[in-house]
């Protein structure tokens, strides 16, 4: 059963766009699973090397805003630098995320995501930790 895993994601049906349900034992794990789900949705494959690192910080007023901003930040790297990320070191305090993200140049991409939306976005507490449904405009 998927919920027995501490973190994970699954794709949910959406008529026109893409929707995922992601869950994690805490906010960092939720963000990482959201990033990995997005990588899967766009069919991203990375080159084996060179391994690359990027650092960024994001300020936020609520955790839903953080989730959207974090994914949009990764999308910007994907589009402008052609780099994808598969490992994450995230440090989150009340209103700031400090991220170190590890990845490599993109070998192939199957789909384009136009944006990460706020549609019905609510990060909820569950017995397993945190959970959110995210709709991507594709």
């Amino acid at each position: 059963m998927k919920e027995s895993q501490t973190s994970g994601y699954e794709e949910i049906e959406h008529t026109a766009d893409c929707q995922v349900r992601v869950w994690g034992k805490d906010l960092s794990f939720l963000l990482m699973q959201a990033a990995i789900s997005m990588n899967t949705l766009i069919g991203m494959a990375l080159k084996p090397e060179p391994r690359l690192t990027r650092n960024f910080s994001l300020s936020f007023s609520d955790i839903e805003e953080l989730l959207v901003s974090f994914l949009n930040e990764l999308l910007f790297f994907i589009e402008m630098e052609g780099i994808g990320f598969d490992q994450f070191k995230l440090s989150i305090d009340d209103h700031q995320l400090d991220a170190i993200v590890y990845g490599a140049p993109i070998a192939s991409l199957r789909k384009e995501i136009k944006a990460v939306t706020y549609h019905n976005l609510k990060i909820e507490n569950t017995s397993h930790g945190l959970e959110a449904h995210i709709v991507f405009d594709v």
Partner: protein
Amino acid sequence: MVSISDLKKISDFEWEIPTSIDKAMRVPVRIFATHKLLEAVMDDQSLQQAVNSASLPGLVGHVVVMPDMHQGYGFPIGGVAATSYPQGVISPGGIGYDINCGIRLLSSQIMYQEVVEYLDELASALNHACPSGVGVKGRIRLSDKELDNVCREGSRWAKQQGYADEADLQRTEEGGCIEGANPASVSSRARQRGKEQLGTLGAGNHFIEVEVVDQVFDQQAALLMGLKEGALTLQIHCGSRGFGHQICTDYVASFQSAVKRYDIHLPDRELVCAPLTSPEGQAYLSAMRCAANYAFANRQILAHFARQAFELTLAGKVKNWYLFQVYDIAHNIGKIEQHVVNGELMKLCVHRKGATRAFGPGEAELPEVYREIGQPVLVPGSMGTASWVLVGTEQSMQRSFGSTCHGAGRMMSRAQAKKKIWGEDLRNSLQAGGIHIRTGSLSGLAEEAPEAYKDVDEVVETVTRAGLARKVARLSPLIVVKG
């Protein structure tokens, strides 16, 4: 969830969701659809999203939903929402991430029978000439100054660069340039994305298609548009690329705090908005116009590339290989327009998301050549099915803020389509039906399979029977190029 029993039937093609269904609604929702098309969306969120949209401050009349509606994010796709200007609000989500996604149609004097043997070569030439696909950058690199000019001037910039002629501009919504675009309202991220993507088609449901006119319903209108039964046409479907996506992303983010400042309460955060007269609202309006102008220029450049591909393939083989502009329209946009609401002439901000402007005869905004017949409306079908050319009507002015449908409308998720349809099988079946396909992704092709969409003929029948448009011609596909 809204159910069919909550709807008040006005006619076989028109329904209303009254404000009594949800206390947050400020105006009713008016749906143009048959019972069958309504049933097709009862399993998704389309109608609930329309109800949510009806909670925007300053709405007038009713929120309109077209028969090609489907679930989106925030607003439904196929929706029209008009707020009073300047007292109302503007909502980036009511326009969408692909600002000024739209359709351009070009006609020709090339008869299908003359070129049937060259169609495969033409498909390859178009595919080569028009950059498409995920992450593909264009051949044009803009400097900061040039990007500013594209933002301000749209297709006029394209004309200065030799990508357009005066007739192209005259036959484009707003002449291909919306006034009031201010590049200072655009973020550096949007600028970075915009500099590399002009003259590209993108991926997803964007396409270039060559068709043959298979039926003409209105000879006079068709003649004015240069449409002749048996002759080739070309359609381009795309928008403002990453430039527009980033602008919408930036303003949906910044409006999250604006709604708190202006004490606006909404049922969905994707509906965030700001008063039209506020600094935030004005900044978005001018940035959105930059993206709209970028999209007009983008489709203009792709049309230029398509003309080059036609020349390369057909020069010397047919008498006249030129592609004449019929019209270019936006179907994701916010426009300041004047409409009569409850007998009163009002200035409005009309949000169209997956809906096409369809101004009726006599409207001053139309180019002189079309003023007598009404504005051309371009309704592409799903891949491999017919597309339609319509014209706007007086009734569309009265009942839908001069708007009509924008396409067939999805009814099957992309994931479901990929499970049911194998891309290679689809390509083979389309090719067996005489349609030449060029695609960068077979799984992307499967996602856009005709089975994933409603029947465009039924959608068009609905808007024409409802009086929102009039049929001019039907186009049948010959070549499909997609990323």
